């Protein structure tokens, strides 16, 4: 089947099945199961573990068609974007068998447990401890910024197993049962008033030995794999869609502001120029990907630009709309929400500063900054907030 035919059939399936208004976790599970049965879950994942064994080309073709629909699979985004690919890359066959197919069929929801209050940009300075115990580990500590944890069955955890080693060399990756005794999930309210994230507390949680991913104390290299998948899954979608959903987008804004004012017109042009510049960059990256050139760290440039554009747009929108944007009836407030959510894009998935470091180091091959924290035993290291 050629790609056009694949795309046509995918679209037909989506038209039939991606009905509006399906919400909640149960609907998500049902939709994942339907996608799996139709062969659209894990399109480029290995057939052996439950995928379809097709190429990136088909994966991208389906994604391109899916952009016109709202698929109710948000709860699976972390599993599909990060955890699943990590298991496929680094798991044992036994682990792949246990976890990949249930994920693709919507039976297991995953979350990712890396960030901590004292370890944001600097993930490797995390303090959650996993201590050896009979037939496995006992985990104590706290995680934060965890999406979909409130629904999750399983979590991909990074914990410290050796405090004598330098910080990158004493971490281990484990899969944790989110329903196990001692796991507490607490929603975290963000500045826009939503609770899309959670805090997770571990109080003597037992993890069985067979849930180890990779090697003990080699968790950092596993995490690098996961983070690579995270960045690809963020930058893959950036700037490609969603303009109609964003009240601060050029398309929506032009309908509400006074374009008779030359200054307003000129500022809308500026927003258009920046939006279009990023859209075309993303389209070029997508073309390259289809041609077999993977964006790698260049995706961090796209992510940085999206964060800046989102903040620029929300700020501009309110300045153009004026007082009514900040005091409104129940049906208003779209722009206020936009400006309250915009900073999230500059913080989630790596701050703007981290993105610039990545672009500088990995795309431009600039000399690295001297590091003082690489060879010090973790227990002697300054981490987090020091009063």
């Amino acid at each position, binding site marked *: 089947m050629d790609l056009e035919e694949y795309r046509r059939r995918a679209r037909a399936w989506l038209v039939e099945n991606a009905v509006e208004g399906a919400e909640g976790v149960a609907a998500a599970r049902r939709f994942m199961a339907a996608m799996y049965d139709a062969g659209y879950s894990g399109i480029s994942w290995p057939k052996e573990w439950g995928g379809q064994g097709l190429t990136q080309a088909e994966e991208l073709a389906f994604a391109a068609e899916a952009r016109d629909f709202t698929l109710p699979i948000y709860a699976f985004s972390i599993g599909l974007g990060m955890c699943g690919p990590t298991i496929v890359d680094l798991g044992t066959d036994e682990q792949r068998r246990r976890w990949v197919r249930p994920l693709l069929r919507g039976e297991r929801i995953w979350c990712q447990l890396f960030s901590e209050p004292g370890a944001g940009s*600097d993930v490797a300075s995390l303090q959650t401890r996993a201590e050896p115990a009979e037939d496995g580990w006992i985990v104590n500590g706290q995680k934060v910024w965890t999406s979909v944890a409130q629904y999750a069955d399983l979590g991909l955890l990074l914990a410290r197993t050796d405090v004598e080693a330098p910080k990158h060399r004493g971490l281990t990756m484990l899969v944790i049962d989110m329903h196990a005794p001692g796991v507490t999930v607490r929603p975290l309210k963000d500045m826009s008033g939503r609770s899309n994230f959670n805090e997770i507390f571990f109080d003597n949680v037992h993890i069985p030995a067979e849930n180890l991913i990779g090697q003990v104390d080699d968790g950092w290299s596993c995490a690098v794999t996961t983070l690579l998948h995270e960045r690809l899954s963020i930058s893959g979608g950036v700037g490609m869609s969603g303009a109609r959903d964003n009240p601060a987008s050029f398309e929506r804004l032009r309908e509400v502001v006074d374009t008779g004012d030359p*200054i307003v017109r000129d500022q809308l042009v500026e927003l258009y120029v920046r939006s279009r510049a990023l859209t075309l960059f993303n389209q070029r990256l997508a073309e390259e990907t289809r041609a077999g050139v993977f964006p790698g760290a260049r995706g961090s440039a796209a992510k940085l630009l999206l964060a800046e554009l989102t903040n620029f747009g929300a700020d501009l929108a309110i300045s*153009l709309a004026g007082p009514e944007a900040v005091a409104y009836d129940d049906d208003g407030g779209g722009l206020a929400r936009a400006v309250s959510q915009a900073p999230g894009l500059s913080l989630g998935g790596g701050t703007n500063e981290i993105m610039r470091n990545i672009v500088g180091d990995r795309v431009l091959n600039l000399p690295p900054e001297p590091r003082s924290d690489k060879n010090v035993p973790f227990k002697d290291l300054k*981490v987090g907030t020091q009063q």
Partner: protein
Amino acid sequence: MKLVLSQEQQDLRGSVRSFLASVSPMSGVREAMESADGYDRSVYDRLNGELGLAGLIVPEEYGGAGAGHADLAVALEETGAALLPGPFLATVFATIALLPERDKELLTAVAGGGLTATVVSGPSAGPDGVVSGIAPQVINGLDAEVLLVRDGRHGLVAVDADAGGVTREALGTLDPTRRQARITFDRASGRVIAGSAAGEARSRDLIAVALAAEQLGVLRASLDAILAYSRIRVAFGRYIGSYQAVKHKLADMHCKLEQAESIVRHAAWAADESPGELPEAAALAQIYLGRACFEVARDHLLLFGGIGYTWEHDAHLYYKRAKADEVLLGPPRAARARLADLLEL
């Protein structure tokens, strides 16, 4: 020109600052903003009772302190830095509108600290003081006891907030620390206070300067908060303030603060001492402070990292106040167009 604080002004700053730190710390601000009224009336009463802030610029003959706008700016910088909820700024605006008309009744009541008021634009009034029309957005419109309707033809009309024909509806706001309301007037009766075009123009400038002073406080408090954090937060084995990405951004924010303070001091000085320079100085203050305050508040939030994105952290309250303040008196382009006119461009 006088761009540095006098000893008296430094003392005023110190007393307002320590008062607010003890009476309205951020924990109190959060309680107030989540309360039904949105502010703590007892804080407002103590602010006026103990510090006499409501009467600061009211002439002594009406029971006020007879201080200047430079002094008022010092006080507003502190209430801004503390994100004080409630009708203090709204009442300052109303006082400014009343000053040129020297309305004894209301000025005396304001100076006594017993009256809250707010300026209302939109509705129109007849010569008999009967007001009709809609004011789409009024700061602290639910809190004010007197609504000062500014009518282009007949000057100010004071309407009792409880008067017949007055309907007030709460609005949703970006800034949770300052409430706004829509107010509908349906043949509501008020008292006409004669007003002149010159008085109105000067009031508008003075209101812009007062807001700029609050914005200076918001800007400074945002910068101070992230400066303190950047000295204690560690990433990759170093204090984040030692990274150039952070340090240089903070240096640029400091440059904005230095200029912002200079502009506010100059505008407040002009308000007191050089009325001819006031219109330009006020427009400059409105334009520069609106932008600089938001940019600094935004960057301070971003530099906090993930913690700054949480509801529990105070960063977003400064960010939202800054953005709401930037458009409080209209879209920024309006102030820029006004400055262009003043410069005869």
